[in-house]
């Protein structure tokens, strides 16, 4: 049996996971202590527009004279938050669908799994763009759009785990006692699935951060909440690509998105290798 302790020990053996964890912790610290770290308030004009990097403004200023470094530091908050929240939404849906399909089986399973297949074959980004444009740009709309459209792959993984646990003797033993399905799921099937849910949450977060950046870059993000995607959107809209400004206006948020996504992916993949029965042989024993 895998205890939490055991998972943790195996996790520390995988180097990628540890690297990811260190990077992610750094980002979280930056997000939490943004007001302390950032040199200026991000929504105030603290310089002249289009300033080049200087001691005063390490990454220059944007088109309306806001400090880009401060924007990026605060952007960490929004990007992380959107990523984790949308992953949360997709995992809530995915867990419910996966648990129901796996536990009840039969026709319910067949119907739900066809829905999952449908969800997996539809090209996601165009659909998201469409939906985001239709709902209008706001923080919560972005969270919902990403969440609602990306529950399929976690649902699938969770279902397969439920199928394994459902056939364990102790689940059967509880059924003999007259337990209702809800009780059995919450008490006996959810706990051993938790580690898989968490690894999925982390993987989905990285994807959500990337998706949010894409949507925002296309102008579908919430313009009042400065995420890294929004920064990129404004940079592009103000022709930063055509001047030297891309060096300090586009490159830093771009690199940060990449690093954050990679750190999530490292953690998520390592966790998944440990907890997903089908990948387990790759790590340890």
């Amino acid at each position, binding site marked *: *049996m895998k205890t939490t302790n055991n998972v943790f020990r195996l996790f520390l053996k995988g180097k990628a996971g540890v690297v990811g964890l260190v990077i992610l912790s750094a980002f979280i610290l930056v997000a939490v202590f943004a007001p302390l770290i950032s040199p200026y308030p991000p929504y105030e004009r603290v310089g002249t527009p289009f300033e080049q990097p200087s001691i005063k403004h390490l990454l220059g200023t944007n088109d309306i004279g806001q400090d880009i470094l401060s924007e990026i530091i605060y952007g960490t908050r929004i990007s992380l938050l959107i990523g984790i929240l949308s992953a949360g939404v997709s995992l809530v849906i995915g867990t419910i669908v996966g648990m129901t399909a796996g536990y009840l089986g039969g026709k319910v399973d067949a119907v739900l799994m066809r829905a999952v297949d449908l969800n997996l074959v539809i090209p996601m980004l165009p659909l998201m763009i469409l939906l985001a444009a239709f709902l209008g740009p706001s923080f919560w709309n972005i969270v919902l759009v990403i969440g609602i459209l990306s529950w399929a792959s976690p649902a699938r993984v969770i279902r397969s785990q439920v199928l394994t646990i459902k056939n*364990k*003797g*102790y689940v*059967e*033993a*509880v*059924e*003999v*006692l*007259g*337990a*209702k399905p809800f*009780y059995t799921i919450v008490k*006996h099937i959810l*706990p*051993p699935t938790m580690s898989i849910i968490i690894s999925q949450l982390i993987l989905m977060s990285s994807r959500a951060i990337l998706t949010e950046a894409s949507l925002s870059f296309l102008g579908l993000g919430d313009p009042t909440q400065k995420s890294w995607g929004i920064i990129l959107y404004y940079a592009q809209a103000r022709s930063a690509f055509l001047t030297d400004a891309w060096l300090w206006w586009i490159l830093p948020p771009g690199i940060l998105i990449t690093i954050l996504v990679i750190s999530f992916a490292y953690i998520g993949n390592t966790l998944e290798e440990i907890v997903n029965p089908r990948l387990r042989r790759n790590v340890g024993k």
Partner: protein
Amino acid sequence: MADAPLLTVAKVRKTFRQKLRWSERKLGDDYKNVFAVDDVSFALERGETLGIIGESGCGKSTTARILVGLVRPDSGSIIFQGKEILGNRASDVAAYRKEVQIVFQDPYEYLNPRMRLKDIICEPLVINGNIQDNRKTAIAEELLDHVGLNPPNEYLNRFTHELSGGQRQRVAIARALALRPKLLIADEPTSMLDVSVRAGILNLLRSLILEHRMSMIFITHDIATAGYMCDRIAVMYKGRIIEIGKRDEVINTPQHPYTKALVQVCDNLQGFISEREHYILDGEVDSFEQGGHCCFAPGCVCRDGECHCQDQGSQELIEVSPEHFVACAHCH
């Protein structure tokens, strides 16, 4: 006996659909029906222990699973304390489930490794909604003490992986007792345990039955264990009961050729080896078609034309002496 039996099982039948191998499939027919339990009937008195013995795959475990509601039979009836259980009255079924509990074969599989013993043992009460949180410890302690895990407070907060196989099986028994059932089903409770601890579990079950005036259905593949535990013994073969009767009669004067062979193997293996042609046809008999003859005929030493019968191939159970029934054409 004056009272109606506690449990009456009549003509219970269950077939499983088995997927055929590619080579055996016919067009449009990927499955064949396998009789897991075929026309099984018996009655169980209050306070009585019935042993069901048979080889693996003979349907003894499926019978147990039908009785606790894990498997739904295709047809038949189960009457418990005068009420039909296979009808759809949900309240009857719920009441029945509280009265009938099972101890499974594998104590490693059937206890949740993430739960503390206290919670495992009290779970039946939690599920059936009659326990307050503050009573849990007291009830669990009493039950642990009851199944011989002393001192109970040392075990309350342990996890199953800290226990030996025998101790786990005791926990499983404690859980089964929590609802004070009238019927306990023990599905090979000692076959996964080490020889030296088996006796402990057997004796525990015997004393609990007496103390709580429970009935028990004890499933095993070992006729000696059945003899030790049971008042009556039923022998199953290929899904059917082929012999049922009082323990001493089945063991001392077995009638069916299969039972005779079982008793001889257990009683005197040397004798069986030196004259096994008297008990069972030697070699491996595996190619047999269902239907048309007694299910034991392919391996039977006394088969002849009479063993062929019209319907599904079942010989009827015939009463050879009071309460001793045998399904063999040669035994009357």
